[in-house]
């Protein structure tokens, strides 16, 4: 599935929710599920510091050149949002990641979490993921 298809899938999933609380219930569930990052990667280097909650992000390139992300956050809602972003971008080519337009966050009404002012590290995480995309696609050449 392409990044675009995954985004559509997420948007569809969210379309069934009647109100904010249902959406957040789902996000919290996602947060609880996210496979924890390997402890060895929870380093200062992999830390993306928001003013409020913290996000750790680790990227790996598989043999086929696609990128695998694992991540964690100390706040569960942030972690749920991180899970959604990873679901959209994981296992994609560096080029696709670098050029992705992550409109789904907006589509499901959560764009405020992307604002740099939200201080939850999510916006910085997406920026970091795209930088990984760029870095790996340059390396591949």
């Amino acid at each position, binding site marked *: 599935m392409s990044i675009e298809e995954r985004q559509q899938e997420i948007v569809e999933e969210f379309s069934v929710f009647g109100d904010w609380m249902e959406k957040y219930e789902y996000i*919290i569930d996602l947060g609880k599920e996210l496979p924890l990052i390997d402890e060895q990667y929870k380093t200062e280097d992999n830390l993306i510091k928001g003013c409020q909650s913290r996000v750790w992000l680790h990227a790996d390139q598989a043999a086929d050149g696609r990128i695998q992300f694992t991540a964690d956050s100390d706040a569960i*809602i942030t972690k749920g949002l991180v899970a959604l972003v990873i679901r959209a971008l994981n296992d994609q080519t560096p080029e696709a990641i670098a050029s992705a337009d992550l409109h789904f966050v907006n589509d499901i009404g959560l764009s405020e979490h992307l604002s740099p002012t939200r201080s939850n590290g999510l916006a910085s995480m997406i920026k970091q993921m795209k930088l990984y995309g760029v870095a790996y696609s340059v390396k591949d050449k």
Partner: protein
Amino acid sequence: MTISPADIESIRKKFPVLHQKVNGRPLVYLDNAATTQKPLSVIESLDHYYKTTNANIHRGAHHLAHQATVMFENTREKIRTFINARESAEIIFTSGTTDSINLVAQTWGRMNIQAGDEILLSHMEHHSNIVPWQMLAEEKGATIQVIPVTEQGEWQIEMIDSLLNKKTKLVAVNHVSNALGTINPVATLIEKAHAIGAKILIDAAQSVAHFATDVQKLNCDFLCFSGHKMYGPTGTGVLYGKRELLEAMPPWRGGGEMIKSVSFEKTTYNEIPHKFEAGTPHIAGVIALGAAVDFIQEMSWSEIEAHESELLLDATEQIQTMDGLRIFGTSANKTGVISFGVEGIHPYDIGTLLDKQGVAVRTGHHCTEPLWNRFGVPGSVRASFAVYTTKDEIELFVAALNKSISMLK
């Protein structure tokens, strides 16, 4: 004597911002320690000023300039009365508490603090009352001493005598902690500081809107506060200082208004308060700050205090029994601030879910990082009240908090 629910309703009518829905729910604004809302009289004062009077002050010979100057200076006199300063020349307008504290650090501080001197703060200071002194201490080779804070969120009083010594040149503490709500026993500290010859600055950002302030009775040397936390406009602040100190201090910002005369050979400075008010001030804001003082003084302090402490009691009773919840700051002397955490839950998650239910609180470190390091947590959820907060809002807050915790557990 507390304010009747009917009176609170008529007070609330003066605050247009409170009557709205957020995320589909009625707004419950409990972020008053960050900034209070503004009554219509303050908003209309700005409006009126810009629609009828706007002019630059002090130097103009024309009608509008004269009017604007009189209105501006009226607020100075109102602030003087509000904190009971001896004379209005001791009232300096700044852009906020942070600006006021930095002014003292960079003028009085630079002039009086030397290598080896000590500056005494407390462990519950706001960053604005830490960083300016750290910068000064670093520049001068002075050191920062810290009054420790107990588990209850109070100063460790018995430590004070050993912390104050001949090297202590300045004490700078808040009257009320923005993170905990603790009302600190500043009167005692002021006396002790003076006894060893130190000066003392009170950060009154969190106190001036919640109980009476009397600088002569306190006998503090400096007092700093912000307009936006006392129902007034953003961009306004006050520095009170004793005349003899202000007069001896060098100026900070150079520019128009703060001079007596300028030439490339020799510039002489103006008298206080103007010496410290370089450039065009926030004229509209200062005038509207006068309306904020009027708003507060139309009520009685005993009413305000009774109402806010009733809210505090009410909220505390209801949330303290929640599973895993810990209140930070359990002093018997508190303003309407409740800071808390819930075991295993990040404050940010609680804040986000409260927001989705219309309840505005603050989460995080509230600019008091050292305090949270002391408590071993990254921060808290903070609900803070104002005179327009109602018991019904406390109910909504408690219900939303219950719901949030159950979702996050």
